[in-house]
């Protein structure tokens, strides 16, 4: 995917007829964002969740997609960020930006702990440790009354100028774009190449002079910082921190959106994250789904509307794994290639991201 994609410089001369349709397409994407921000508080709320999940998906992609370490405890990192952001902003009345920074820091520190464990334990055992780590965080740290304000949850009030959902959505979109750019720079850098080498084979990477210990820790901390930032945004989005929201359920959802999106592919993960962020809230409102639920008795219909998205998500995951291991990324690869200036059809060295 990255190795072997050399820029031949053939695209050096800007072609107006090639640029124009792409510019229109990008403008359309920007238009959707603007539409989400201007339609109303409900739509902006959904879109905010999608933007935050994009950051989480990219964060998980750094460890899972680039470095090859499966983390089943990402909800713990996100939750730690949310908790510290809510705590600093409410108990110590920290400014919005400072609370965000503290949130990111909390995620980074928790991820550093996991990273140290990952130096000794790898593979399936590491996933098991991350699973237990996330659940332990949720049951212990997220339930400490002094931090979380007891059963009511710790409030995380937005500053006055971000009070409207639309404005907060634009801030979260900025985070998502920044995370995407960071991710793009990462894959083109020495650190990114080192991570790919570690994923391919740790021993070979070490023998080629890659600092396996350092880059593994770096990957985890970077992932944790992004997850913590996303968590802080999540807390400010609902204006409250509730420990019970960060259950193992959420960790599975994060893995779902990364795997169904396409592990290791930036565009795929972004689309997957948006898809799963909207699935839970939008699927029950879709007319065909409502019609399907209406075929059943009233109680069952209500259950289907409530628990259907989880079932659909699981089904999509299993179908992705068994029939389409590249995920969404595989399907949208030509579109992404075209949008980023390449050809729609490309026979050799397909660049997925």
């Amino acid at each position: 995917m990255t190795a072997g994609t050399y820029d031949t410089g053939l695209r050096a001369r800007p072609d107006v007829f090639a640029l124009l349709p792409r510019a229109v397409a990008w403008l359309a994407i920007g238009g959707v964002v603007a539409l989400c921000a201007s339609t109303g508080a409900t739509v902006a709320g959904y879109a905010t969740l999608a933007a935050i999940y994009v950051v989480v998906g990219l964060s998980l992609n750094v460890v899972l997609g680039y470095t090859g370490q499966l983390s089943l405890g990402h909800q713990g990192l996100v939750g730690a960020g949310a908790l510290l952001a809510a705590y600093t902003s409410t108990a110590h009345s920290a400014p919005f930006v400072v609370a965000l920074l503290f949130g990111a820091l909390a995620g980074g520190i928790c991820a550093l702990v996991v990273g140290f464990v990952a130096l000794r334990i790898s593979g399936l055992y590491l996933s098991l440790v991350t699973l237990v780590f996330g659940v332990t965080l949720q049951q212990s740290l997220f339930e400490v009354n002094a931090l979380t304000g007891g059963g009511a949850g710790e409030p995380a009030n937005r500053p006055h100028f971000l009070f409207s959902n639309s404005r907060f959505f634009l801030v979260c979109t900025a985070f998502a774009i920044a995370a995407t750019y960071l991710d793009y720079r990462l894959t083109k850098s020495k650190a990114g190449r080192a991570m790919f080498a570690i994923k391919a084979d740790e021993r070979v990477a070490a023998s080629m002079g890659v600092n396996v210990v350092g880059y593994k820790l770096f990957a985890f901390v970077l992932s944790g910082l992004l997850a913590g930032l996303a968590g802080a945004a999540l807390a400010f989005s609902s204006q409250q921190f509730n420990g019970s929201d960060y259950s193992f359920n959420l960790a599975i959802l994060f893995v779902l959106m990364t795997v169904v999106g396409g592990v290791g592919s930036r565009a795929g993960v972004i689309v997957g994250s948006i898809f799963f962020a909207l699935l839970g809230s939008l699927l029950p409102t879709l007319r065909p789904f409502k019609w399907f639920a209406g075929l059943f008795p009233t109680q069952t219909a209500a259950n289907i509307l409530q628990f259907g998205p989880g079932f659909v998500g699981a089904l999509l995951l299993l179908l992705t794994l068994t029939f389409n291991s590249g995920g969404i990324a595989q399907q949208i690869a030509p579109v992404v290639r075209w949008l980023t200036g390449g050809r729609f059809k490309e026979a050799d060295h397909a660049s997925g991201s």
Partner: protein
Amino acid sequence: MHVFASGGVAVPVQLATGIVVGCGYGIFALGIVLVYKASRIFNFAQCEIGAFGAFIALCCVHGIGFVPKLPFPLAILIGLVAGTLTGLGAERFVIRPLFSAPRATLLVATAGLALGFASLEALILGTNFKVLPNIGGPSKFALFGSSSDSNSYLYGWTQITTVLALVGTALAAVAFFRTRYGAAVLAVSQDPTAASVVGIKVSRISALVWGIAGFLGTVAAIVTLAGKPFIPGGESGFYTGTGPLILAFTAAALGGMTSLSGAFVGGLALGIIEQVAANYMPSSVPGGTAIVVFALLLVVLLAKPTGLLGKTT
């Protein structure tokens, strides 16, 4: 002797409860170890497949959906068959197509399976949960102390049946590995290609193992859920941290993921540790049990990855 702990539960009662719960963890762990031995897969759906079998039994008992109301023993039998078939189906439609995929992919697949089953149960049952009847009937007697104590001190035939059934199942599973089929499973786990060369059908062994794992999971789920409300994706299920999955995996890791007896003993030990930790951890520390289990898992994996009772292979 200082009999009463800080939580007010007598030590023998903690031990007895721990043994009853721990046997369940042990059986779940047996299923996990069996699958790992045969195909090097971490089966995160072990508890949920079992819970699905128990769910089918529940449907039969209460006559939920299109299922007619059936007598309890028949319902349990159907539940066991359903759990076994669920394991077989999971192997046929999810595990076998992914046979050559990376192990992490398979782990995600089993987690997805668990999510799917939990959602399916929730779709049918909804939030108004039903209760699986007690296995040994409602009769109770005081094993420790007087029967005038709180209800939680009373032990009945349910608990005795639980322990007997689970220990019996564990012994049967260990005995299975002494047979030709057990040897075949071992051969496949060591080298699938070599095993197929000497005439072992690898896919059939894989199916056999998942069927047994489904059966074991269902036994453990039915027995540990008896008399308790069945909440989809709740305590019985996959999601809750104190739920059986984490404890079963920790138990399996205590046995080094390869030792059947180690896994069962590990499950027993964890059941007791859980009860003792719940009583002795100060109430100001939330999630004390989870912290203890996490610390134990880390220590075992960091200090002795082959497990406390595992063999070095």
